[in-house]
């Protein structure tokens, strides 16, 4: 129950994987899972985007050496260095220090080659992967196809307790076809398979590894010490296979501080040089201190006003539209998120996504029009209960602003704050008017499939539009980029206009660091450079 | 000869909770010659202890010595600094406190405390001090002188502790010893041994002393001269024989009169009346009830008594003998485990719950401490009026009129009606206590130590009131006390309790004469008389009495361990029954004829 540690949940597909796994583990229907998977398959553009690793252009020449201490959030005795078992951001941060995957995702979520030298497919079903030669594990052993097969096949073993079982289950056959070549056969075609391989759970460890607490991988850092729930110490891997970039630092000590205040104080006191997950109110403080900086990672995370279209008063479109117009997006961005958010337009695809429809007219705060609509809906003078909870980031404050705006429009809002515990099972999608919080998804297709398709299990507002469903299927099959973009734009317009969801802003992820720490830049894959800061940062002593 | 102690114009001030300082000792002067004992006598609040402590340069918390001089030998005490005072205390002037039980540190062995001052003042080394202490124990006739020092204070009886404290004071051979009511907390039978030990020690060592007490008879045994104090002022200073023979000051005369209470004439005459109260075969106690229906701690056993209508029965015994429990059993507060209580021919239920309201009304209890017997939060008219409402349903003007009558009856001004008990003096509170009991118009009044907490002069007035009430209302009373003089002054019959059993009953007139139970005899002989040679002449002083009364045993006579006439094989095997003795006495002793 530590304060605020859930304010900004993990940003990207990591949480998605996790959710998938949990859904599976707990008996979610197969159809849901298949839907999610196929969505992944069609979502990412393939072909020429599989480029080799290349360091980003940096303003300064990185220096080698130095030690830093980094505080993530959330830590427990369940901390692990087993790639298959990663659950929290702390695990991802550590595993990216010690391991690599066959691919990795770049800042626009496209897959890049990492330990794979090439990836080819036959109708997206049989995949042939050439493994990079001359790569050494931390224990000196050279990477070969056996290690890849071992690392992937582990996920089929129930005893491993992988968190990526659903994704792994699509691989029906994993065999070596040479010392450095692996053939993987899938159950069905999945053009997005390289994206799957780039997810954190499919990192490569040496064949036969049983004790993962030593963190033996090919990654930029070697594990010197690891105590679950306490800390890890990583030292530079001098034999790192990737040339022309990091690792730069001699040593990284990494641990978790669940309390955001303590985390900020630790940074300000000089105890640590980098902290993940800062809240907006602390950001100002950090910036006011000399020698500290905030790294803002824009994301598709949003907290939305959910109006059930199948219940009163949401069954009246005028009410829904009126409420959307009562959201003072500027004030929400400024007062609640201190500017660390982007104005959204009641549709879920964030600007960073290449399918983002930028030309839909921005819905504005318009109390007069809202009053007219609400009056038309016949709710003026009545009292509407609105449920908020700390579980949905910022919803309490958003509710307050909504309440004030509604008062001007003659609508009384009874703001009910309910406990974060049990919010998702007891209130979310059940109350007529409430709030939700949706983590970013890597593709528009996934977002739409999960939250807007008529049969989506998390169709928050109960919005049903057969035309939307048809478009969604068509877009998934469409390979012409221009046509596809138009389809996604149309779908965004439909959501914007008629769904029961009001999305005021996209919330940025915030990390903070000492100015001496260089090489950080926001990555679309998530906070802390998609958790892979270790390889890229250096210390300007 | 220059006096050893010379106190001139001593003034001591005390802070009060309200704010201003008040003077509690107002210019007291007296002197004591070497080898003599000065007695300081007065009632509570007279400043006697404060003065005694001041001779050691000591004032209790909140008090300070504000003026005057205190010279002891060559030393001017008021001019001493902290270090000088430390050197004076315990070395030149030693102190013996009222309650030895409270004045011994409970967590240190006795010997360490006895020799402490000798070691602090560096007078001798530890073995020598121990040796000397053991010698003093012997001189004080303390049993087991070799080993008693290894015990802790709680393992030793009060009388022994008091003598051990005297040893503690004498270990440094001080010039002056302050005795601060050293026997007040003791039972009379114990007091006599302690007094004897003190007197011998004083005589043997030619000790100069200041002896503080409220008991004229006690001080008469020890002091050479007496200073009478009242409200922090000296009333009279005289040699002891002179004061006893011809007190000059009026207050001294009052004290003297109160010390030897006059026999009040009993309103009853003859033996004709039928008994109002009869208690037979009664046993009672506290704690869990055992299989045999008897409580774990038996306080009273096989009690038999009757009180004739209009009569006054005095119950006497030392502390812990069960006399207060007797009153509680009769009132029903402590249900008897066995036996019957019969009032006016009707058997009463053992507990309150089983008695009718009328029965409860007929027996009223008056407690010892008026402070705790009156609810401090309830005004006087409500205290007295409640029984009127409760028993007679009186209200309003009728009740108020009756309250006034009762106040009048107990000689209280009507103005006390709306006061709280805290605003009243001790004597007034006790009168309210009576008024409340009388409001119920009881047949039987149980008085538990009603005068013990009062100064003698005030107590005498209460006794007068009781006699008056008996005469006017024809009350039957049971009067419980540890003080034989008080009982003798107002009672028709006397019952002696020892260790939970009745050992003797007698008519009050038979007290000075007749054959008594050995314990009753001891009790009689232990009450100090107002003459200077009483201690030397009383036969009780020669009785070898030691130890605390043992727990109530069923195997033999409870007095056996202390009894001079005890016959092993007889007295320790069977409980002696009450047997008639000439003179209207009944005594529970096998060896009555042996004396």
């Amino acid at each position, binding site marked *: *129950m530590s*304060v605020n540690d859930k304010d900004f949940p993990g940003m990207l597909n990591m949480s998605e994987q996790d959710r998938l796994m949990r859904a599976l583990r707990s008996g979610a229907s197969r159809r849901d899972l298949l839907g999610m998977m196929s969505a992944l398959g069609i979502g990412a553009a393939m072909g020429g985007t599989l480029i080799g690793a290349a360091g980003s252009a940096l303003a300064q020449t990185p220096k080698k050496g130095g030690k830093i201490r980094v505080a993530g959030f959330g830590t427990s005795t369940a901390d692990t260095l087993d790639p298959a078992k990663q659950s929290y951001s702390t695990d991802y941060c550590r595993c990216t220090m010690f391991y690599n995957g066959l691919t990795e995702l770049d800042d626009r979520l496209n897959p890049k080659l990492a330990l794979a030298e090439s990836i080819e497919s036959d109708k997206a079903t049989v995949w042939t992967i050439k493994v990079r030669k001359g790569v050494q594990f931390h224990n000196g052993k050279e990477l070969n196809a056996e290690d890849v097969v071992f690392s992937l096949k582990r996920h089929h073993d129930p005893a491993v307790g992988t968190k990526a079982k659903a994704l792994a289950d699509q691989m029906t056959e994993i065999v070596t076809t040479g010392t450095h070549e692996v053939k993987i056969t899938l159950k069905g075609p999945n053009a997005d398979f390289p994206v799957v391989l780039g997810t954190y759970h499919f990192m490569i460890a040496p064949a036969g590894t049983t004790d993962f607490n030593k963190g033996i991988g090919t990654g930029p850092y070697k594990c010197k010490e690891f105590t679950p729930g306490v800390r890890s110490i990583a030292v530079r891997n001098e034999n790192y296979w990737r040339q022309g970039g990091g690792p730069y630092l001699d040593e990284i000590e990494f641990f978790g501080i669940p309390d955001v*205040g303590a985390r*900020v104080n630790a940074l*300000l006191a000089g105890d640590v040089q980098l902290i993940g997950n800062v*809240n907006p*109110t602390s950001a*100002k*403080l950090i910036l006011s*201190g000399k020698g500290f900086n905030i790294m803002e990672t824009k994301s598709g995370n949003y907290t939305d006003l959910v109006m059930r279209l199948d219940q009163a008063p949401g069954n009246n479109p005028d009410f829904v539209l009126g409420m959307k117009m009562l959201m003072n997006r500027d*004030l929400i961005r400024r*007062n*609640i998120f*201190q500017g660390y958010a982007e104005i959204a337009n009641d549709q879920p695809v964030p600007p960073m996504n290449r399918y983002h429809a930028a030309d839909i007219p921005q819905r504005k705060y318009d109390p007069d029009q809202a009053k007219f609509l609400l009056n038309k809906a016949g709710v003026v003078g009545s009292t509407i209960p609105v449920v908020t909870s700390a579980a949905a980031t910022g919803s*309490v*404050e958003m509710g*307050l*602003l909504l*309440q*004030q705006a509604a008062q001007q429009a003659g609508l009384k809002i009874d*703001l009910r*704050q*309910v*406990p974060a*515990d049990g919010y998702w099972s007891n209130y979310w999608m059940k109350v007529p008017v409430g709030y939700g919080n949706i983590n970013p998804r890597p593709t528009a297709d996934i977002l739409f499939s999960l939250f807007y398709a008529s049969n989506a299990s998390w169709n928050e507002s109960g919005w049903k539009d057969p035309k939307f469903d048809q478009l969604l299927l068509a877009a998934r099959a469409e390979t012409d980029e221009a046509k596809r973009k138009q389809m996604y734009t149309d779908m965004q317009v439909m959501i914007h206009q008629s769904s029961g969801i009001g999305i005021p802003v996209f919330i940025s992820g915030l990390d903070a660091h000492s100015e001496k720490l260089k090489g950080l830049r926001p990555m679309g894959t998530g906070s802390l450079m998609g958790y892979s800061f270790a390889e890229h940062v250096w210390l300007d002593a | 000869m220059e006096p050893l102690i010379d106190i001139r114009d001593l003034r001591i001030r*005390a*802070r009060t*909770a309200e*704010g201003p300082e008040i003077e*509690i000792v107002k210019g007291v002067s007296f002197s004591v010659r070497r080898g003599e004992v000065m007695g300081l006598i007065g009632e509570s609040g007279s400043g006697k202890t*404060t003065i005694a402590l001041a001779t050691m340069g000591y004032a*209790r*918390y*909140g*008090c300070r010595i504000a003026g005057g001089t205190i010279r002891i030998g060559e030393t001017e005490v008021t001019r001493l600094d902290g270090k000088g005072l430390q050197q004076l205390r315990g070395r030149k002037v030693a102190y013996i406190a009222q309650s030895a039980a409270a004045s011994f540190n409970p967590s240190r062995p006795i010997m360490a405390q006895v020799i402490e001052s000798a070691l602090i003042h560096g007078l001798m080394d530890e073995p020598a001090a121990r040796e000397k202490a053991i010698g003093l124990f012997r001189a004080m006739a303390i049993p087991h002188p070799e080993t008693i020092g290894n015990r802790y204070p709680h393992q030793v009886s009060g009388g022994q502790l008091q003598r051990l404290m005297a040893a503690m004071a004498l270990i440094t051979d001080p010039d002056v010893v302050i005795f601060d009511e050293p026997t007040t907390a003791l039972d009379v039978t114990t007091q006599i041994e302690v007094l004897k030990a003190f007197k011998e020690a004083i005589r043997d060592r030619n000790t100069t002393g200041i002896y503080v007490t409220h008991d004229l008879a006690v001080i008469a045994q020890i002091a050479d001269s007496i200073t009478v104090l009242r409200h922090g002022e000296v009333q009279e200073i005289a040699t002891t024989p002179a004061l006893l023979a011809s007190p000059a000051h009026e207050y001294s005369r009052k004290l003297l009169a109160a010390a030897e209470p006059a026999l009040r004439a009993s309103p009853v005459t003859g033996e004709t009346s039928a008994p109002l109260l009869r208690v037979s075969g009664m046993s009672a106690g506290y704690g869990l009830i055992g299989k045999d229906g008897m409580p774990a701690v038996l306080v009273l056993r096989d009690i038999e008594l009757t009180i004739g209508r209009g009569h006054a029965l005095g119950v006497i015994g030392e502390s812990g003998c069960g006399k207060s429990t007797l009153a509680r059993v009769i*009132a*029903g*507060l402590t249900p008897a485990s066995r036996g019957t209580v019969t009032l006016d021919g009707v058997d009463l239920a053992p507990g*309150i719950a089983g*008695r009718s*309201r009328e029965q*409860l*009304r007929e*027996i*009223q*209890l008056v*407690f*010892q*401490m008026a402070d*705790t*017997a*009156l*609810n401090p*939060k*309830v005004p006087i008219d409500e205290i007295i009026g*409640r*029984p009127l409402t*409760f*028993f007679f349903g009186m209200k309003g003007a009728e009740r108020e009129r009756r309250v006034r009558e009762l106040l009048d009856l107990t000689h209280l001004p009507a103005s006390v009606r709306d006061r709280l008990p805290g605003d009243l003096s001790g004597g007034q509170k006790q009168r309210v206590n009576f008024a*409340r009991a009388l409001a119920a118009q009881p047949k039987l009044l149980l008085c538990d130590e009603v005068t013990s907490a009062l100064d003698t002069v005030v107590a005498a007035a209460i006794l007068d009131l009781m006699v008056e009430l008996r005469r006017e209302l024809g009350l039957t009373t049971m009067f419980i006390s540890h003080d034989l003089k008080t009982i003798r002054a107002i009672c028709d019959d006397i019952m002696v309790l020892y260790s939970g059993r009745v050992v003797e009953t007698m008519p009050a007139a038979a007290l000075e004469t007749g054959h008594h139970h050995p314990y009753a005899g001891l009790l009689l002989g232990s009450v100090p008389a107002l003459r200077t040679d009483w201690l030397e002449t009383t036969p009780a002083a020669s009785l070898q009495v030691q130890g605390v009364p043992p727990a109530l045993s069923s195997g033999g006579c409870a007095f056996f361990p202390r009894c001079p006439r005890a016959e092993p094989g007889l007295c320790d095997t069977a409980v002696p029954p009450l047997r008639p003795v000439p003179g209207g006495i009944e005594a529970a002793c096998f060896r009555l004829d042996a004396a």
Partner: protein
Amino acid sequence: MNSATFSVHRGPMAILARLSRMIMPAIVLFWLAMAFFGHWVAPYDPAGIQDADLFEGMSRKFWLGTDYFGRDMLSRIIAGARYTVGISLMATSLAVTAGVLLGLAASAIGGFFDTAISRFLDALISIPSKMFGLVLVAALGASIPVLVLTLAVIYLPGCYRINRSVAVNVAALDFVAVARARGESTFYIMIREILPNMVGPVLADFGLRFIYVVLLLSSLSFLGLGVQPPEADWGSLVRENMPGLPYGAPAVIMPAIAIASLTIAVNLTIDSAFGRHAREGIR
């Protein structure tokens, strides 16, 4: 002469003491008034976002600055008084009332009733109060009635202990025996004879308990389990404005001062009203 209730009546300490004897009850009364009538004097809507920066300093417009959300701090503290003082007062009253009644009953009835209830409440004492509060509030939700009940339950055993021992002491006094011997009912004895003599200790205990309740409520609020936004008690105010601490923002310092001023004032008021002795046996 042995009286232990002396106090210094000379020198500057005396003036200070006398001053505090006047000021401290005034502070207590002030906060009580704010709790009951504060909404009439608050300059702004405590939940209303003003046209202001975050963590503004003190100004003519916002006497105590603004909070992390741009709301007027003075109005929020005044509104918070209602929760902090109100909840604490209710919880303390509940705990003390229950403690007094149970203590009275235990002393008057005794026997098995006394033993059972004493053992039961003793067991409750052994659970750390914050943990107990945490579990209870988590179990029942952080509504105000639940907070009041939780705080009352947490402090009931302590209240009971104190009041039982006071009641037992009073019940052993002779005037109670007199009433018993008169045949008065247990209820009469409890209410008319024993209770009036418990008033001093009960009030002293009430005051102390109140302080503990205020502090525990603040701690619960700090852990996010107290009064829920947009309403806020003082502890919640401190917590939600914690990021302002480094700037020395009045938004975080003022509610903390409010808590401290209330607890200290209550503490010292009890001290001067009942003497330091009254409280020292209490915990």
